[in-house]
């Protein structure tokens, strides 16, 4: 894409510096928003833009904001910067290289829902990113861009970072809120949703880093401009994190609806010489595996609807590419082991189910399993699906179920390699 709207540092070197960011229009949007718009107008503009949450669920951002009741105060905005899905590394690049646009977006969200305080919850491993953001926040305070009476108005906004400490589950918004409250990162029962009962039991909006980074350009250029990008139901641009067996893995900002082929071959440089795409996980380790047995799959547009139509999910667009040397039983052991490690232990289907899937998948992958183990693995997955407190448990079975259904011969191969050896 010629111009970046999110990864703007790729066009403007040094945009992580306050003076450079301001020279390129930085904080003009929040100034316009605070001095000329009502919170409801901001909300309506974002609603009209069709922006959908970039953390994975794809829920319309403006609608999410509109759920906050106006008779319960204070309101909070919490930014989900827990980026932990295997295959996702976009929020980190935004925060490291274009931090002010992200923070300006966070301020816009805070104003829209009339929150005076917003927290950025970063995964603990982003220790240096948090220190970097703290420096940026301090610079903004010194420049009068944060604090009280912003731009001569009655509006006050304060931003704080908060570090997690290594727990995938804290990307789930209610677990994140528990963690921010100083508790174990375990999901809450819903309803009530965070919009009504969030941080400290107060109405709270939880938005992803990339979602918030979209806000300054939307409020600057307008909803109609934003809708001119992407597809009708999935408007705008998206950062695709491309990883796995490709020549140039990395983040690529493209309009929603760009095809897998464009991402993998035009931007990602294709695969190693002589290799073919065997499978794609479009939403990281949580994906249903897309089997690329037919060239047409690569021409699927990457938007929420089209990826769903081929039986998978776009999620946070963490596209993991597997070439034809990858055995899917090996892959499933990797994903299951991840979820077993990250299960928070609160609900039984997930805690026990991932434990047993991990054992069985490990047995199969290491060549110590039997054909019956493949059926057993499928059976355990079936007993987890639809029975968990949060999405983690549901995610844990995606690769298992779609892997066995589409690549059973890979599992058989592992099982029979052992039988042959023994004979």
């Amino acid at each position, binding site marked *: 894409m010629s111009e970046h709207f999110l990864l703007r540092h790729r066009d403007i070197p040094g945009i992580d510096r306050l003076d450079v960011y301001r020279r390129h229009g930085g904080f003009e949007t929040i100034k316009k928003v605070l001095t000329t718009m009502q919170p409801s107008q901001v909300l309506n503009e974002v609603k009209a833009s069709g922006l959908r949450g970039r953390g994975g669920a794809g829920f319309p951002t403006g609608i999410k904001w509109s759920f906050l009741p106006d008779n319960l105060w204070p309101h909070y905005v919490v930014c989900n910067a827990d980026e*932990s899905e*295997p295959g996702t590394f976009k929020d980190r690049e935004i925060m490291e290289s274009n931090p002010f646009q992200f923070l300006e977006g966070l301020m816009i969200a805070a104003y829209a829902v009339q929150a005076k305080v917003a927290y950025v919850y970063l995964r603990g*491993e982003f220790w240096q990113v948090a220190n970097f953001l703290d420096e940026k926040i301090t610079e903004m305070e010194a420049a009068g861009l944060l604090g009280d009476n912003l731009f001569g108005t009655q509006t006050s906004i304060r931003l704080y970072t908060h570090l997690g400490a290594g*727990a995938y589950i804290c990307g789930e918004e209610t677990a994140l809120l528990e963690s921010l409250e100083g508790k174990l990162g375990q999901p809450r029962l819903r309803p009530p949703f965070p919009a009504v009962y969030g941080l400290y039991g107060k109405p709270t909006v939880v938005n992803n880093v990339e979602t918030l980074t979209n806000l300054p350009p939307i409020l600057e250029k307008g909803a109609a401009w934003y809708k001119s990008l992407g597809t009708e139901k999935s408007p705008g641009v998206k950062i695709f994190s491309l990883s796995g067996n490709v020549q140039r893995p990395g983040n690529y900002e493209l309009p929603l609806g760009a095809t897998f082929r464009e991402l993998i071959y035009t931007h990602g440089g294709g695969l190693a010489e002589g290799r073919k795409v065997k499978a794609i996980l479009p939403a990281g380790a949580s994906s249903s595996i897309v089997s690329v047995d037919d060239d047409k799959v690569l021409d699927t547009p990457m938007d929420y609807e089209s990826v769903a139509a081929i039986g998978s999910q776009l999620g946070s667009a963490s596209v993991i590419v597997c070439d034809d040397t990858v055995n899917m039983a090996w892959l499933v052991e990797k994903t299951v082991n*991840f979820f077993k490690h990250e299960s928070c232990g609160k609900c039984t289907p997930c805690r026990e189910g991932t434990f047993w899937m991990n054992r069985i998948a490990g047995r199969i992958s290491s060549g110590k399993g039997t054909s019956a183990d493949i059926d057993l693995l499928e059976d355990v997955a079936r007993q987890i699906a639809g029975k968990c407190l949060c999405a983690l448990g549901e995610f844990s079975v995606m690769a298992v179920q779609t892997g066995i259904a589409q690549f059973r011969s890979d599992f058989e191969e592992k099982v029979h390699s052992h039988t042959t050896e023994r004979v």
Partner: protein
Amino acid sequence: MNQLLNHYSAEVQRILAKYPPEYKRSAVMPLLYLAQRAEGYVAKQALEDIAEIVEISTTEVSSIVGFYTLYYDQPAGRYRIQVCTDLPCALRGADRFLHELCERLGIEEGATTPDGLFTVEAVKCLAACHRAPMFQVQGDGDIAYHEDQTVELTLAWMDEVRARVAQEKEAK
């Protein structure tokens, strides 16, 4: 006498100021990082100190240490080399990297080098899938990423650290 409060008074206050006074408990995680800074693990006394500061029980503080992977209740090497071996990294040779690194160091995965400086372990996704093999180093109150690694690069970096630590010792 609250040793943590005593030792890091200004930092404790700065942490507490981030949260509403009636929700002090939110400070438990930042305080645990503080407690872990000097020795690389949270000592028993620190659990009690934190419990007192945020007004919860020591058991509750301890459960936080147990739940989150970046807190430790046991000492290990001064630097924890934590290699991501999840799917995207594994597709780019992370398992082989970890195996070879341990082999060259002559230690098992999860073990510490004889000089007590480095513990090498496998961890879950670190959001650096495009720059695998990679690892983070946890130690001296910091977490730093090392990306696009080879075993040779890593060993060379470890030598640098050893030299620096030796110098520090001499200076003392």
